[in-house]
């Protein structure tokens, strides 16, 4: 495997990481902490939205993020032919 494909694979990987970690930061530190009070003015059923993100929503998003990462990386590994046989 040559050097430029290696670099291209790694660059794509880093792009995924940046996007996924940005979402990770926004749902927890953003919605759950920094903007929690503003979001609390919106109510979904019995839940103030900021409180829901802090105690429920952020955790659901975390789980989804990891599985999305698994799917994206498995595809990327195949595309660059670096997957495990």
């Amino acid at each position, binding site marked *: *495997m040559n050097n430029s494909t*290696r670099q291209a*694979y*790694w660059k794509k*990987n880093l792009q995924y*990481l940046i996007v*996924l*970690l940005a979402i*990770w930061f926004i749902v*927890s*530190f953003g919605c*759950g*902490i*920094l903007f*929690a*009070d503003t979001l*609390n003015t919106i109510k*979904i*059923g*019995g*839940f*103030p939205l*900021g*409180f*829901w993100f*802090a*105690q*429920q929503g*952020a*955790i*659901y998003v*975390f*789980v989804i*993020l*990891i*599985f999305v*990462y*698994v799917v994206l*990386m*498995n595809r990327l*590994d195949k595309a660059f*032919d*670096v*997957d*495990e*046989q």
Partner: protein
Amino acid sequence: MSVQTWTFLIVGATFLLYIAVAIWARAGSTKEFYVAGGGVSPLANGMATAADWMSAASYLSMAGLISFMGYGGSQYLMGWTGGYVLLALLLAPYLRKFGKFTVPDFIGERYYSSQARLVALICAIFVSFTYVVGQMKGVGVAFARFLEVPFSTGILIGIAIVFFYAVLGGMKGITYTQVAQYCVLIFAFTVPAIFISLQMVGNPIPQIGMGGTLSDGTYLLDKLNLLSEDLGFGSYTTSGMDDRINVFFITAALMLGTAGLPHVIVRFFTVPKVRDARKSAGYALLFIAILYTTAPAVAAFARTNLLQTVSNTEYTEMPSWFKKWEGAELISFDDKNGDGRIQYVADKTANELTIDRDIMVLANPEIANLPAWVIALVVAGGLAAALSTAAGLLLVIATSISHDLLKNYLRPNISEKGELLAARIAIAVAVVGAGLAGMNPPGFVAQVVALAFGLAASSFFPAIILGIFDKRMNKEGAISGMIVGIVFTTIYIWYFKPQLGGPGTPDGYWFGIRPEGIGTLGMFINLIVALVVSRMTAPPPESVQQMVEEIRIPRGAGKAAAH
């Protein structure tokens, strides 16, 4: 049957199960002992990681803590789950590709230095030991309270059980026992939650029930806010402005610490492939999330129940659970104004009721009038949580001694058999040592969580991340970063923790950051020091740069830990 009989029955049955599993999965080689032979399926590894991760504190104390803190408790919920995203995306696949046994293994080879290995080794033992002492204490308390044996006997029973399956089975025994323990603890945690959710809001799913309506048509959380505000506790669902910065820093410190704890990281060395390491982190978080999303619901239900039951009620009309926990000195009532009623309010001078937060999970089934077997089940779950975490931590300590210290440092020529024996002796010594320390806990034990997470965040996390993502990082940078980070964090925590004898007062906090959250700052200091020092010194050798290139690509991961 009485609660006592049920407890003996259910706890006894679960213990038999653990022992049977341990005998079935005993280890024959060092590879089995350290990383379970590298053949654990991602699903089983996810469950084992979840049990390993969720300690007595998660199981018994967290819901109680949230119940008293309201929104402020979110820092534990997000902090102890969000770290798995970092683990899955930034650490687990690369460490699996690297394919050795321990965190010091990685640090030692990536930074081509036995000093780096030694620093990592000392950090790993220190972090794991402080953490395990607290677990042993938890085991002792749980046994003492439910089997009505003295505290020290409780710890001895705990030592005997862990000793048996950890020494016999190593990582293999521990992993499969943890799978069983996960099933016990999650069943035991969710069953009462479902019952209570049905009772209060008529919805069998607590996560949804929390946002449901009570029998009088008001939303549960609205009612809870109203009750809390009336008594002066402030709104349950919002935070004070000045607390925002601490929720932020503590959440971050817990996340970074999670991703840096050696007993969590080592779990990803046990799966067959890089692909499995990624998936396994996802399963682990899914299994953890089941408990972590149920806990806030339990907290809100329990709080509402408690306020409605006790507030301004005649003391003589209190239900039997109240008397029971009063007898155990975990609830106390002091009728200050002499009216025979309970005034439970935020104002300390008028408040008449003191409640130990730790009883919320344990008392919850009784408060909700659930059958005796459910109460016994909760006890078995608490013991499963404490034992599984203790075993995982003890293995890290034993591995550090027999593999990192003995095999790689003192006696490189030791045979496979000799190393396995050394590992068994090391774990035996560690179990007994932790038990004795738990029996007579040094004053710092109550503070260990802050300490262990802060130290893991400020030492391992940056060193490992930089080792993977910064090819230019060299040993000078990594070692100075780890040392500055861990020293800074230790001093700050010691200085501002009166329980540890530090002279500091809250007025002196840097940027108002409490000691629990300082690991976040320590992590950044480590990162900056490492980057600056590495750029001023020689780049790492070509072979190490090559190794980093290899770690970044999944193909070619040998069967686990092929030397």
